[in-house]
């Protein structure tokens, strides 16, 4: 039972860290640029498809990952220049409509280029087996360990970037009061482009890392967009720390909640009913958490604006 708990905690950590990569970009764009970007999930999909394409071309995982990140960041820069810059300052409804249209355009474009069938990315051979954490008792897939490692490293990197560098200071200034930051001499437009490209790069990293575990398919962005939004609402919009805490909370509740609920329900009802009811209730728990946060702390757990 203890080992099951540890393994599920690792799974929750892995899911949470991947959510963090997406939520970090989303919360920065939302917080700093005051822009609701529904197409954030599409950047994740584009990153995954580019990684799959580069993988087929190069036959090697890590170079493909790197190229996909750079290419997606470039796409982010282009999108910011020609579209998102114009959307800034418009009403949130216009932004939602425009970026929703972008989702449809992205999905159809990918379908035309790559076809409707899911693509596979092969994982590095050396990482395709399990690691024995506790002999004979606890195994964990090596590749998922890598994801956890990369996720933690990126979280640390982002923390240092936001809290220890000049760009990070501008970003924090922009998040708490963009007009004042501009008046104080922060060049806000290049900052926005940088933030957007950073968000796109993080999306691509998540998409490419998850590619070998999940299939790379059209519409994969929408399924992860809702949890990502839940994360930033829970964590507080614009706050990097909030995104990390929110993502880990959501990841843990989703994974451990399923285990705990199914286990708990088995004490009350028969096992078949518990097996059906547990996952259904667990998927509601994240939304319930969000509702509670909105009710008791509408600004989120770690609000960027004081």
């Amino acid at each position, binding site marked *: 039972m203890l080992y099951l708990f540890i393994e599920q905690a690792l799974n929750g950590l892995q899911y949470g860290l991947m959510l963090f990569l997406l939520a970090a970009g989303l919360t920065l764009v939302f917080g700093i640029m005051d822009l609701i970007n529904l197409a954030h999930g599409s950047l994740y999909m584009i990153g995954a498809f580019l990684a799959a394409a580069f993988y087929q071309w190069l036959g090697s995982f890590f170079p493909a990952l790197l190229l996909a990140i750079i290419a997606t960041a470039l796409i982010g820069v282009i999108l910011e220049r020609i579209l998102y810059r114009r959307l800034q300052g418009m009403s949130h409804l216009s932004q939602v409509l425009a970026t929703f249209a972008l989702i449809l355009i992205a999905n159809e474009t990918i379908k035309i280029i790559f076809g409707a069938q899911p693509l596979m990315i092969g994982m590095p051979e050396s990482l395709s087996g399990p690691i024995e954490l506790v002999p004979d008792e606890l195994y964990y897939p090596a590749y998922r360990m890598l994801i956890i490692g990369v996720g933690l490293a990126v979280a640390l990197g982002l923390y240092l970037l936001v809290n220890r560098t000049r760009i990070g200071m501008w970003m924090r200034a922009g998040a708490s009061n963009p007009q004042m930051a501009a008046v104080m001499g922060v060049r806000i437009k290049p900052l926005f482009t940088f933030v957007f490209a950073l968000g796109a790069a993080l999306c691509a990293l998540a998409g490419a890392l998850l590619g070998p*575990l999940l*299939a790379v398919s059209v519409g994969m962005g929408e399924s992860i967009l809702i949890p990502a939004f839940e994360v930033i609402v829970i964590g507080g919009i614009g706050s990097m720390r909030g995104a990390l805490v929110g993502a880990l909370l959501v990841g843990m509740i989703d994974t451990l909640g399923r285990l705990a609920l199914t286990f708990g329900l088995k004490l009350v009802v028969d096992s078949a009913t518990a097996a059906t009811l547990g996952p259904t209730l667990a998927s509601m728990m994240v939304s319930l958490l969000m509702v509670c946060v909105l009710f008791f702390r509408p600004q989120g757990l770690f609000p960027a604006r004081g």
Partner: protein
Amino acid sequence: MIKKTCIALACSTALAAGSALAADSIKIGMMTTLSGPGAGLGIDIRDGFNLAVKHLGGKIGDLPTELIVADDAQNPETAKQITERFIKRDKVDIATGVVFSNIMLAVGPAFFAAETFYVSANAGPSQYAGADCNPFFFNVAWQNDNLHEAMGKHVQDKGYKKVALVAPNYPAGKDALTGFKRFYQGAVAEEVYTKLGQLDYAAEIAQVRASGADALYIFLPGGMGINFIKQYSQSGMLKKTPLFAPGFSGDEDVVKAVGPAMEGAFNTSHWYREMDNAVNQRFVADFQKDFNRLPTLYASQGYDAAMLIDAAVKAADGKIEDKAALRKALETVKAPTTRGEYHFGNNHYPVQSYYLREVVKNADGSVSNKYVGKVMDKHTDAYAKDCKM
């Protein structure tokens, strides 16, 4: 105005008279899943169906044939809209193609109300096999429980005592585990239902490991199965707790994607590639030639669906407007089939044999399915007795 009405009346009389004559063309609506994680299944059904039409010289029932293909994207809402279009605008004579049972149950009533024959090439929900069976519904493949029943029997015969079960939480998932447990008598170590379309199974695999099961049975068709088996192999479990599956998680689509890790996995099916009959040999050879991949059970079902419709329309002398005659023909006609032989039970589901297959390594290093033996002979589904038609 009066004149117009007269013309309309004359037309409708002519139409009514025409119903007794042979139709001059046939329109078939194929709505199937062509995008998303379940796309491989729909694509195989479509390609199998098309190959049969090609073998029939482009004509079903000797009539000029129009095949309308639509993608339901595995979404019941989209499927309902397409069904409306098929019935009201396209006025299809016969519909086919749905892969997933939740979609079949969502669109079935509309087709039945419009008295449009539905020949399912895959989805075989227990509802339509039992109390809710319908004169307009035929399933050319199997009843959902069947392949699972066959595997339940095999796992039971092999002497496993504590099996863990994983299936998606939707009608066919429930049918699957019910079917398995009908013939497997041992203990259930863990029964896990997942979300339909789920792609990450880390949590479920951990649960299976912790349950101490001596074998695992999964029903996860298409992309779900591909992901599960890959992740199961990565977790090191495949070597410790053997995996059993129906043909849906063990056919060439899954084997090709998962690769050598699948070697030694057993699965059950109503069809196998080496079947020794002329129809199947031609189907397998031409499918590989046309599509450059090995056919799956889904492709064989698509092929058989087209062959059944063709044979029935011919047997009814092309009178597709005469519903009673066409139904009689569908029920009784002996259509050419890739699986050697089958016939319909009283609920319009096939009575047929089920076989065991194993994934083996070929001389060139690739892996594919190989026939092992027969598990069930001329098996009738468990719901047929509840069908009063």
